[in-house]
């Protein structure tokens, strides 16, 4: 006899958005967000990730963490595509405030203005903030 979760097929697919607002190493938020995103992707949900405020620093190219003795988890963002997490949005205003541009980011993203992001948030079923 098969288990109930095997019988249900794909089930309901909801739009999940993960809002990332923290820099990568000073707190645990960025790493925890990645873990949760990968879990949701495993359940075949419609996943998108937004990076705004200091969250844009998570995607900065060239992170080298040997000197602080912490795991460099930034390559994981490049692996997200393999888990069908392909919708990455970065807020233009947050990049500009920090003197960064799209070229400073380690993965292809869609740079979007604050107003457009607000609209995108309105379309979601679930929003989880980190």
């Amino acid at each position, binding site marked *: 006899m098969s288990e109930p979760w095997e019988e249900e097929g794909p089930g309901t697919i909801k739009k999940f958005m993960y809002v990332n607002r*923290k820099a990568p190493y000073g707190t645990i938020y960025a790493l925890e967000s990645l873990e949760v995103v990968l879990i949701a992707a495993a359940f075949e949900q419609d996943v998108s990730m937004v990076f705004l405020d200091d969250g844009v620093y998570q995607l900065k190219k060239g992170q080298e963490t040997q000197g602080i003795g912490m795991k460099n988890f930034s390559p994981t963002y490049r692996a997200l595509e393999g888990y069908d997490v392909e919708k990455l949005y970065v807020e233009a205003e947050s990049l500009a*405030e*920090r*003197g960064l541009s799209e070229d400073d980011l*380690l993965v292809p993203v869609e740079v979007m203005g604050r107003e457009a992001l607000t609209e995108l948030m309105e379309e979601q079923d679930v929003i989880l903030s980190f």
Partner: protein
Amino acid sequence: MSMLHTVNKSPFERNTLASCLGHAKAGSDILLIEDGVYASVRGTSHEDMVRSAVGQHNVFVLGPDLLARGMNPEQLIEGIAVVDYGDFVDLTAKHDKVQAWL
């Protein structure tokens, strides 16, 4: 009496650096560590605040924390010096007191 001020929060997320600069006496040293290092690069909206701090203090940034966050030492605001952990110890020993702004 001299003091070393350490700042470990991003200037975009907290007002820790601004508060430190408002209370640090001219001539005291300031060391940016952890997420505080984001204040040290050129081209941010906090650049003017940091530039005026460099005029009144020795401002240092901890190299390992800078590199971990993908920041290039060549992007620093002029006058900010990169230090390593040994230099951090020396700075602590050089001053009578350390004030850690959290």
